[in-house]
Structures are given as structure tokens and as C-alpha cells.
């Protein structure tokens, strides 16, 4: 039988015809695979990620993530900016966990310079980092629902996020790119009324989490769409370098807040929620419970916040870390963010390499998407929590 080339509508990577293959298996009728580009402009890749799929009917044969549409050369740029400026730059790549990012840069610089951060600053940093985590997780809680067609959780998520952003704005002045960390401490102390509002918010959000439970976690349709979809065994997750909620959902409770505590995480009591199956539902569930844990940490910070300065008394005029290198692990909202900082005694780092969780999360898309149905692509992609800026940097 003649092999006809599948005419295309100009959506294939290299124009019509390319990437189409004809599979003739035994005596079966010949079937053609369709290549479908999801992205870079597609509603469900939240950002400019592109996934090139080869489809057998609605079943995905291969999935190749194409990244780099948002590459902003953070690593290179930080070699040309001083430490203060890097803090402002670093909160931009993963725009959903800005505070966590700048915290990492500050921690790395402090470690290299041997600066002792005041107690109060450390506690406030932890408070901010946890609120930031809640912000981030709420976003994914909402967007996952949206991708599965439930539009309301997204609006609820933004309702809650709005409250938290107002809180963050009180202290930092910004709603998204906080730039609140400084090497050695923080920009300013908390304004009056911050803690009170923070306490109110903890209660409010804890109450409103029930809405998400009612809309998504307890919903039969949602379960039907996510349970058993995109199963990621713990071993595979580890081998791909996946961290954060996705790793936890696969049953591995690796969290640098626990295993290698920074700030004051060793002094607060919290759990690392883990999943049993590593499917989409577990990932979502873990995200949900991580919010609860973060709220728990925030409550403890409220109780334990000491008085004192937020910057060390003596700070050098110019930030010039001595020659050497350091690596800082932080458990950022989406997983482990590592900062490899090499200094040659200059005011600028010689090298600042970031290990971002989203990059590793995206790297296992081919594994997760193999053999799933096209509609499940959404259930899988939505549960592989990533921020495109964090992938490309």
C-alpha cells in the first residue's frame, strides 16, 4: 500500500511533512503518527515551554520538552553584577517564589563572608519564606484545577494570594519581587500590625483551604482524572534529580529543611507530607498539605520571634567575599534550589550557578508522558510543578 504523507497544517517543527512517520507493524493497517506541538504559546504550559508530542491517536508516544524560550542568562549576568544587585535579579527567575530565591543568594554570600545574621532576621526570613511558599503552592493548587477544567479554584487561589500579597507588601513594599533580603539580614524590620495580620491570615487561609478540598480533593471527577495518572516511582524521581513536592509525592521525604536545616528550621516543628503512589493526585495532595505545614511553621514563628536588630552591627562597606566557594541548599517552594557561588575576592561573584528545581522537574516530562492519553497530558503537566523562568533562568 502506498505510503501517503500526512499533510500538515504548518504546525510541525520543520514545516509540512517533517516529523511524520509511517508505522507499519505486521499485517496491521498502516497508521500515521501525528506530531503535535504543545506550546510555546499554549494555555496549559503556563509560560513558554514547548512540548513536542508524537501521537498515536490520542495516546502520546514520545514527548520532548523544548526549553530555552525564556533564557535570561542569570548565571552570566550575575558575573557582571555586585551582590546587592544579584539579590534583585535572583528573585525574578522563579517569579512565584521570589523570596526563597533571594534568600538563597543572601545565604550563600553570608556563608562565604562568614557573616553572622541576627536572630530576629533569621526568624523573619523564615516567616517570609514560608508565606512565599504558601503563595507559590496556592498558585499551583489553582492552576492545576484550571487545567483540568475547573475554573473556580484558580479564582479562589488568587483571592487567597491577594491577601498574602498584601501582607508581603506591608513588609517589603512589593507584591511579587520582594527584594527584601540583604546580605547580612533584611532591608527593614516588619511594620507595626504585620504579625497581627499574619495571624489573622493563617486562620483565614486554613479555613479557606476547605474550599479547595470541597472543590478538588474530594471531588470524584478530579480523582478520576488524577488518580493513577503519571505515576512517578521514588527511585525514578531520585534518578532524575527531582526534588520538592514531586519527590515527596513519590514517597521520598527528602527536604533540606529537615536534613540540612538552614535558618531556624531545626527549631520549629513541622512534617514533610509524603504520598504513597506518586501519581498526579498525590502530587496535588502533597502540595495541599505542604500549605498546612507552612502555616504551622508560620504560627510557630509568631510565637518565637525574638526582639533585636535585623542587620549585624558591623558590616563591611563593600561586599567582597574572600576567595573561595560555597554551595547552599535551600528548600525552595518547588524543591531544592542550590547556589554554587565562587568568589575571587571581587565585588562581583566569579561564578554563581543555580540549581533550580523546575529544570529537573521538567526533565522527567518524557518519562511521565510516555503512553498517556492526550487529555492526561494536562493532568500530568499540571502536577509537574514548574515555572518556566525557573527552568530556563
Amino acid at each position: 500500500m502506498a505510503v501517503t504523507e500526512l499533510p500538515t497544517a504548518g504546525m510541525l517543527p520543520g514545516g509540512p511533512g517533517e516529523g511524520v512517520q509511517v508505522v507499519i507493524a505486521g499485517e496491521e493497517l498502516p497508521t500515521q503518527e501525528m506530531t503535535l506541538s504543545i506550546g510555546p504559546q499554549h494555555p496549559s504550559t503556563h509560560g513558554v515551554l514547548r512540548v513536542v508530542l508524537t501521537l498515536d491517536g490520542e495516546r502520546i508516544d514520545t514527548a520532548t520538552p523544548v526549553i530555552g524560550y525564556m533564557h535570561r542568562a542569570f548565571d552570566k549576568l550575575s558575573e557582571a553584577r555586585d551582590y546587592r544587585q544579584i539579590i534583585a535579579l535572583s528573585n525574578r527567575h522563579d517569579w512565584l517564589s521570589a523570596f526563597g530565591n533571594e534568600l538563597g543568594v543572601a545565604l550563600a554570600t553570608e556563608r562565604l563572608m562568614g557573616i553572622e545574621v541576627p536572630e530576629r532576621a533569621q526568624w523573619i526570613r523564615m516567616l517570609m519564606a514560608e508565606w512565599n511558599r504558601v503563595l507559590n503552592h496556592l498558585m499551583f493548587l489553582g492552576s492545576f484545577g484550571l487545567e483540568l477544567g475547573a475554573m473556580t479554584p484558580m479564582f479562589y487561589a488568587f483571592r487567597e494570594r491577594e491577601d498574602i500579597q498584601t501582607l508581603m507588601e506591608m513588609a517589603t513594599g512589593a507584591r511579587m519581587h520582594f527584594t527584601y533580603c540583604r546580605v547580612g539580614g533584611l532591608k527593614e524590620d516588619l511594620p507595626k500590625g504585620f504579625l497581627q495580620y499574619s495571624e489573622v491570615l493563617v486562620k483565614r487561609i486554613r479555613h479557606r483551604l476547605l474550599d479547595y478540598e470541597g472543590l478538588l480533593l474530594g471531588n470524584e471527577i478530579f480523582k478520576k482524572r488524577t488518580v493513577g495518572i503519571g505515576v512517578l516511582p521514588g527511585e525514578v524521581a531520585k534518578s532524575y534529580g527531582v526534588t520538592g513536592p514531586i519527590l515527596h509525592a513519590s514517597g521520598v521525604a527528602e527536604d533540606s529543611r529537615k536534613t540540612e536545616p538552614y535558618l531556624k528550621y531545626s527549631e520549629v516543628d513541622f512534617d514533610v507530607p509524603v504520598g504513597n503512589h506518586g501519581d498526579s493526585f498525590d502530587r496535588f495532595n502533597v502540595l495541599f498539605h505542604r500549605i498546612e505545614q507552612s502555616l504551622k511553621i508560620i504560627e510557630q514563628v509568631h510565637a518565637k520571634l525574638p526582639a533585636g536588630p535585623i542587620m549585624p552591627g558591623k558590616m563591611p562597606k563593600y561586599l567582597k567575599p574572600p576567595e573561595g566557594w560555597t554551595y547552599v541548599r535551600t528548600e525552595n517552594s518547588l524543591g531544592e534550589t542550590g547556589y554554587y557561588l565562587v568568589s575571587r575576592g571581587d565585588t562581583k561573584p566569579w561564578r554563581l550557578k543555580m540549581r533550580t528545581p523546575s529544570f529537573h522537574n521538567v526533565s522527567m516530562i518524557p518519562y511521565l508522558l510516555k503512553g498517556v492519553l492526550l487529555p492526561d497530558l494536562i493532568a500530568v503537566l499540571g502536577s509537574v510543578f514548574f515555572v518556566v523562568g525557573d527552568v530556563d533562568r
Partner: protein
Amino acid sequence: MIFYHFFSNPWAVFALKLAAVFIFFLTAPLFLGYVEHKGLAHMQSRLGPMEAGKFHGWAQLIADGVKFIQKEDIVPDAADRRIFMLAPMIVIIPVSLVFLVIPFGPAAVSCHAPAGAGACGFWGENFDVGIFFVLAISAISVIGMLMAGWASANKFSLIGAIRGAAQLIAYELPLVLAASAVAMQAGTLSLVGIGDAQKAYWFVFPQIARFIIFVIASLAELSRPPFDMPIADSEIIFGHMTEYTGIRFGLFLLSEYAGIVSLSAIAVVLYLGAWHGFFVPWIPGPIWTLAKIGALSFLVIWLRATYPRLREDQLQKMAWKYLIPIALVNILLTMIFKVVF
């Protein structure tokens, strides 16, 4: 006596009814669209449109319509031009025809139509096979959907259209089965007759399962959430409507909302007692009908606000494994009851 002469002229009455049906066809979906804007918004803790027309954005849908008319009508270069442009009409015409047969009230008491008593009332046309007409005509829309999806020369459109067709084929069956059980119980295929037959009790009460099947199947036919896979925006952009702009896109949307109104109306006539009210019998029948249509349409909106969408194969499974067997058993039971009592 000029009115008497006017209404005894069948052509005048026909023209009047046609005009009324057309106006209802144009305004009801707009009103429903507005209710959806506001209802969805409030369910999501928002306010929805507030600017157009000043008072709570009442003119938002009109503004949208004007916008659709003004926008450029783009036909993709690779598209099959004629079919692409024809598709929205194929979708909207059957939907508009359904409005012809929706009965809003009982037959007029003093009727002077030449066809005899019972031939005129609050409806456009009383077909002998009304329910059959509705089911047949609403099945045509899917051809327009397939045309749009295929002619757009876009893979997402094609997938959407195929999903839409698969969904329609699967759900046409439970829909017809659920409706035919009602026809059996009422002993007539005429929508007016079915409405009349519910004077004693609404058909929803003896057979609630049938009603649920009808509503689920209607939702699937309309591709409304949680069965909106043909236009699942996070998967396939907007299905068969992806490439459409301007008034043609507007026609698709209009047909969607008109479809909600018409299928709600049919469900009301079949199950919810049509124009028969309760507690307050002095409220006229047409108002009852409209109120019930509104309530059912609101349910459709409410579902959209609440549920994620199912997967296409789960939908098919639901149709073939549950809805169709239940509907068949239902027909059997209805038959037995009909014969025994």
C-alpha cells in the same frame, strides 16, 4: 374586532409567532450569557461585568456582540474557505429551529385558528412528532462542528471536532432513550401533549433517573462542563472554534447559549411539568415555564463553576456502561407500567 380578524388570519399569526420566536432566540441566550457572566463571577468571589450599561454591566453581552461584528473575519490561509465559512451557520440554524416548538403554556382557551381548538397557544409550532423533531434537528449541529474542525486546518480544531462528534454519537442514544420513555408515558410525541400529560404529576418524580440521564446527555451534547472536552481550553485551545474570529465565532457562542436554553426548555417540558406550577397556581403558565428554564440553565452554569472536566474515554465509558443500560431498563420499566396500569 380588528384583533379578531388579525388573529384569525393564519399567515399573520404565523408571522407574529415567527417574530416572537426569533426575538426569544436572540434575547434568551444573551440573557443567559449575562447570567453566566454574573453567576460565575459571584461563585468565584468576583463581580463580573460592571461597566457596560452602567447598572451591573447589563449591556455587556450587547457590547460583546457589537465587538464580534466589528472584528475582522479571518479565514486561515490553509483552511477550506467555503466550508470554514459555512460551518457556523450549520451549527446555529438547527439550534434556532428548536425554539420553534418549545411550548411555553397550555393551548389557548378561545382559539380561532382554522385548524381547530388546541392548535394555538404559547408556542411557535405544535408538531405531531415534536420531541422527535427536536432530537433530529439538534443532531445536525454536530455536522457544523465537524465541518469547522476539519476546515480550520488546525490539529487542535480537528481533535476538538472529533471529540465533539464522538461525544454526540455516544450521547444521542441515552438522550433519545430518555426522551422516548417520556413519550411512552405520555402516550404522545407532541411536546404540547407531553406538557398536558403532566397535569397530575411531573414526570421527573416517577423516574428521576431518566431526568438525570437526560440532563447529563444534554450537557454532553452541548459540550458544557464537566463534559466540555471538545473545547477543553487547556488541552486543545478551543476545539473547533480555535481559528474563528469575529461574527462567526460569535455565532458559535450564540449557538452554545441558545443550545442551553433550548435543551433546558425541552427538559422542562419533558420532566419538570412544563407550564404546570405548584403552590401558586395563579401564576400564568408561561412564567412557570420560563422560571423552570431559568433554573435549569442556572444549574448548567453552576456545574461549570464547580467541576473539572472528565476525560473523553471516561465520558464514553459513562455513556455506554451506565447511561444507556440504565435508560434501556428504564424504558422496559415504563413499558411494563404502561401495560399493567
